[in-house]
């Protein structure tokens, strides 16, 4: 007790507290990098292998013929190969547990197995297929137009530069900083989890590519020209910085001015 009280009055205690606060701010950011996977055509062998994989890994929630179970998992009939590729290649599916959000994690299947799974689900009903390299090439998109589309359709959930944001009841819109162009395209096309669908009639394929170009532009060195972006989450991290570091420095200065010289 007395040792703690003495330590609390030590002249370096405010400095130590400040360092701890800074560490806490820095520790907030942690991300998982999902790998990419692209598959276009499916042989009969792929489809058969995919069905086996599905029965072993997915059927317990989605049902033996992917018809879905009320309140547990949606039907996968007609979701298309794009949805399978997005959900499985980012590790969202299979889910570790029933929870409001399906977070990204290390994928459980390799690219070959994901292709087989997607091939089988694609045979269940017509649905969006995995986009080609050409359709998601950011170099062919118009980043300025992409910003207009992103600002209107995406920024309210995913943040103005794609840093992500909170939704209700534990759900959240994930950060897009680590997403591959194919994943971004597939997410718009299939509307995973809470996200609405942005069909090709709503945002055209060219518009989707522009959005990808805009998001990739955020990762270049030029995007950080304004200085440290503090995670690009806007007033929350900036306000925390001002309250902890800025006001802490002012308090420290006032204490130093008032203290007697030794």
């Amino acid at each position, binding site marked *: 007790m007395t040792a703690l009280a003495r330590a609390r009055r030590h002249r370096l205690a405010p400095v130590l507290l400040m360092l701890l606060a800074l560490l806490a701010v820095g520790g907030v950011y942690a991300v998982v990098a999902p790998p990419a996977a692209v598959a276009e055509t499916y042989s009969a062998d792929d489809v058969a292998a995919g069905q086996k994989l599905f029965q072993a890994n997915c059927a317990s929630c989605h049902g033996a013929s992917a018809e879905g179970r009320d309140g547990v998992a949606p039907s996968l009939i007609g979701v298309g190969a794009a949805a399978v590729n997005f959900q499985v290649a980012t590790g969202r599916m299979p889910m570790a547990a029933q929870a409001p959000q399906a977070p990204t994690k290390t994928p459980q299947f390799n690219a070959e197995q994901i292709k087989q799974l997607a091939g089988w689900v694609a045979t269940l009903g017509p649905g969006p297929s995995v986009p080609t390299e050409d359709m998601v090439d950011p170099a062919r998109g118009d980043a300025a137009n992409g910003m*207009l*589309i992103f600002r*209107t*359709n995406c920024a*309210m*959930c995913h943040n103005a530069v794609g840093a992500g*944001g909170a*939704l*209700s009841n534990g*759900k959240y*819109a994930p950060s897009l900083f680590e997403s591959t162009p194919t994943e971004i395209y597939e997410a718009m096309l299939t*509307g995973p*989890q*809470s*996200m*609405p*669908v*942005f*069909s090709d*009639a*709503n945002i055209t394929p060219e*518009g989707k590519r522009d959005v990808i170009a805009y998001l990739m532009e955020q990762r270049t060195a*030029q995007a950080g*020209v*304004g*200085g440290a972006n503090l995670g690009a989450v806007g007033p929350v991290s900036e306000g925390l910085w001002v309250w902890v570091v800025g006001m802490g420095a002012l308090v420290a200065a006032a204490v*130093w*001015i008032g203290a*007697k*010289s*030794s």
Partner: protein
Amino acid sequence: MSNHSTELETRGELDPAPSPERFENPGLPPHRPRLSDTSPEGSKRAERQVAIIFGISILATIAGVWGYFAFPMDAGVGNVRYSTLSIGLGLGIGMLGIGIAAVHWAKALMSDVEVVDQRHPQRGDDATRAAAVADLQAGAKDSGIARRPLLKGALITAVAIAPLSFLVPFVGNLGGSWNVNAMRHTMWRKGTRLATDPDGRLIRPEMVTIGSVWHVIPDGLHEVDDVLAEKAKAIVLLVRLAPEDLKILPGREDWSYDGIVAYSKVCTHVGCPVALYEQQTHHLLCPCHQSTFDVADGAKVVFGPAKRALPQLPIMVDDEGYLAARDDFDEAVGPSTWERQRPIRGEDY
């Protein structure tokens, strides 16, 4: 004083020690000389420290000026960052160094002997007060304000109208338009087609699939004079729900088309664009204060500070198969104001 054990035994019966009427002034703590007072080396060291801090300030100022010339602003956007950073750091450290050095000088080298200076009584003595009152009365009598009504009136008028010179421009600049009725209407009219935001493509009902969300502006928005003002009022969110999910409110049977509903995107709390749509729960969230509206149930408020449901835009399909407005909103969009009914949540729409 009693010893410790008897104090414990008798505490329950005795009254607590009466608190004193007033606390004695403890006085100043004893004066402790500083290192710089007692030893010449200490004094020398403090002097050196002050000089070093002033030196840092001088170097920072020079570095800031150097940064202005080293990073010309017109050599690309990347240079702006280094230019502002070096000028800012030079200015900041330069000023801070002067301040810190001055404070350190005062604390370590100037006299730190406590001096007590009693405050003089605030009330003046009677003779001074009487003289002041006499002066004022003499001045008022000399001005003759009581027997010169013309001057009195002129003075009061001049003082009274002087604020107009800034009040009139201030009120006048609030807005060019005093048509308050413009707040009650948007540019949606019967037959105005729905178009996508921002590229203005027209929308057919078969394009709107279940689970998708469309951000909509009125067709022709970009031809009006004040695009942003009209857009701020007219933005709409279009959603298609499965028929079994959608609850159609009485009196609004023909406001939706085959499960497609359109609601104002302007939050009824303070007017942020409500646009975070969770397609699984049909909930629409406002990014500013987390007001949540249930799109499947008349966009009524299910959470948050908003008090009114979002106004619904009645829609139809026109002769050429495009989605179009049936009419303007039947209430003003946007934040609730004092002149508007505020139904209690869940009771009314």
